[in-house]
């Protein structure tokens, strides 16, 4: 084939390899497409919809759409940023995101994306649905009220750790994360420090106990640089180092 394998993103020519998604091609070219449920090395999920881009006039999710030669992708447009701002607001009103009181503040991708898309208020009515927390595990604490249902922990635990600690249950607005044990408690699983699933949560839902002040507020990842510059990989990497993962 004589045609070079490239697409354009906001007019910029971006090469890609056969089989890559638009997200992968963009990341390789250092182009930031907002995302919350996507992580390198895990099968894409396509649930948060933050990565919505316009491909040849049609909207689709960049994380699970294959790059194909000649695609014209719109990413950083006002229209898409507005849409993403609304999606971010949706996640804020659905859960209980108490940023100033959350251990994750400054390291949280949801918060960082909210800054990036210019979200100043959550605007819509909060749902105030109460989900019980799980503090049963000696090293981890789960606040389901901050879970955005991205299924990153589900995939990491199933596909990388091979432990299958998490799953989703319920339907629609009642969809919620469950722990895979008859008691439903994290302590009754083999979840452990060093699991990929233990440091993949983009928000403050799965939290390591006793690490609240390892990095002071104000010096955390997204306190220093915006997410479109640092992305998420570093955060995961930093988390891995701090939390004892040797991989």
């Amino acid at each position, binding site marked *: 084939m004589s045609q070079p394998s490239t697409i354009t993103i906001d007019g910029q020519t971006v090469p890609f390899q056969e089989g890559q998604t638009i997200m992968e091609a963009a990341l390789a070219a250092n182009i930031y497409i907002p995302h919350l449920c996507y992580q390198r090395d895990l099968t894409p*999920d*396509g*649930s*948060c*919809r*933050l990565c*919505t881009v316009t491909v040849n006039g*049609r*909207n689709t*999710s960049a994380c*699970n759409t294959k790059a194909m030669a000649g695609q014209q992708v719109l990413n950083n447009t006002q229209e898409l940023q507005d*849409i993403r701002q*609304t*999606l971010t607001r*949706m*996640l804020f*009103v*659905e859960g209980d995101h108490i940023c100033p009181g959350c251990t994750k503040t400054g390291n949280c991708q949801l918060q960082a994306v909210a800054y990036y898309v210019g979200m100043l208020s959550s*605007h*819509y*009515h909060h*749902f105030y649905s109460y989900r019980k927390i799980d503090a049963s595990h000696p090293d981890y604490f789960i606040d389901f009220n901050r879970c*955005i*249902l991205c299924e990153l922990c589900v995939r990491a635990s199933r596909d990388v750790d091979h432990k*299958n600690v*998490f*799953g*989703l*249950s*319920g*339907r*629609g*607005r*009642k*969809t919620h994360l*469950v*722990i*895979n*044990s*008859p008691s439903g408690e994290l302590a009754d699983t083999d979840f452990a420090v060093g699991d990929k699933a233990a440091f993949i949560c983009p928000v403050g839902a799965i939290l390591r106990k006793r690490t609240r002040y390892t990095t002071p507020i104000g010096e955390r990842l997204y306190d220093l640089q915006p997410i479109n510059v640092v992305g998420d990989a570093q955060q995961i990497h930093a988390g891995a180092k701090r939390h004892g993962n040797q991989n």
Partner: protein
Amino acid sequence: MSTSNLTTLPSFIQDVVQAYQGRPSYLLQMLWRVQERLTCIPAAAIDSLAKQLNLSHAQVEGVARFYSFFHETPRGQYDILWSDNIIEHHQGKSELMTTMMQKLGVQLGKPRADGRVTIDNTACIGMSDQGSALLVNGFPITRLSKTKVNKIVELIEAQVPLADWPTDFFQVRNNIQRKHLLLGEDFESGAALKVMQVKGAEATLADIDKSGLRGCGGAGFKTGLKWKLCRDAPGKEHYVICNADEGEPGTFKDRVLLQAYPDVVFEGMTLCAKIIGARKGFVYLRGEYRYLLSALETTLQKRRSQGLLGDHILGDPNFSFDIEIHLGAGAYICGAEMALIESLEGKRGTAWKRPPPFPVTQGYLNQPTVVNNVETFALAAKVLLQGAEQFAQLGTAQSKGTKLISVSGDCDRPGIYEFPFGVTVREVLLACGANQTQAVQNAGPAGRCVSEAEFDRRLCFEDLNTTGSFMIFDRTRDMLDVVQNFARFFVHESCGFCTPCRVGTSIIENLVEKIHHGNGTQGDLKDLSHISYVMKATSNCGLGMTATNHIEDTLQKFPQTYEKRLKWSLGLSPSFDLEGSLEEARKLAAMSNQVAEAA
């Protein structure tokens, strides 16, 4: 649940698992057995199923808690579900239901202290032409009146077994008002298969193709092409699936076909099987139609004994095919083919998979699969009998043949109308005796709201696409009641996978409720329009993309419905610019054709 139930639970679960040869893809069917026996799916049953099926606890739990007919806590000995479509509300459902609850002394969704009865709402059960209607332990009672409700209360208080209730209570009418090619001619079992035997499978496929038949489930994909793509796709097995989920509120044509014409439907499936090389077919029957199960099984058995199903159909050594019926469990999303297949595989019925690949190449168990609507299969059989040319003569350029329309709401003669494609809204209204019509909701809540100015539009793929639901509202109706009912429906039915639909449906419901209560502001209208836009632009599947069509349409065509309820007195943005806030809605309306294609 009693303790004796708990101690015998593991052995009961073992029997259930064995009844399905321990195959995890039958999990939904196993859960039905548990629900029927225990009136709920307790955590202990989940645990036992997980162990015996070698599935994770979370997986079984996730499936059990997805479907609304599976309950976490015990239901009453009589479990009553009232159909909650707007049509039934207009038929007096709320008052009847309140009476029943008061007389029996029960609260919504909670079993009475003595465990006798539970009363709850459920999405449209496909009886809008004979509502109000309810399901008691899965069996429908239609045409409810005060007298009937009182009688039901008495029967329950006297603990009369369901089998001894008056049989006429359980009669479901067909209400066929107008017949044509599909409903008109008598059908002899095996007739179409015999035509195929003479013609050969290749020529039969060519006929289906030539007829111009398109799918009746909504997307209107060409049936001949779908079968051909599936036939040509490599795979260990090929499968035929009949989509009998009929979840779009106000639709009941598939129920009538399965009730009165099951042979024609099965015959269509069998034709398809021969053409694509399938040995196995499924009917995915919505849980609301569980009452049809035994009659359908009887028809299947009859066809086996006639040599029309099973091994060597019509003596052909290369033609073996059988059909199984799988029961859904209360989830509208499972009508969407990607979710349907998940559900058929025993999983949560979410629409997380986004094609491609399409089911024709990777469907059930990742094998090439044809999914067609009930009516599509029935029409395929008719094409063979009537001839492709004759079929293609009916209808319009892009929409051949006839369409079954489920008419309900404000008219004299609700029921099933078979019209050639291209019939106008006005012609249907005239035929069913509708007067003073304000609006027609065409193709269900996910379809389009048609105002009087558009009554000359035609029902066909070129103009107003229809799944068959045709709900009529006369001028006495408040369209905001309609909107509120639809908004609630989508909150209940979103599968919850993606952000815009999972959260957006609830935001919409909250806003509509606020406006309905008279507390709305102009800003709320703007928000309605914007959320609608974002849902359409970003949702993962057709449900989220169409869940706000009714909002868009009513904002545009019935703005006064909203305006008259706004709280002007608060002085919030007093110079409201309706035009401006509707810009987005208009833009969306232009996008809608594109979206219909995507769904």
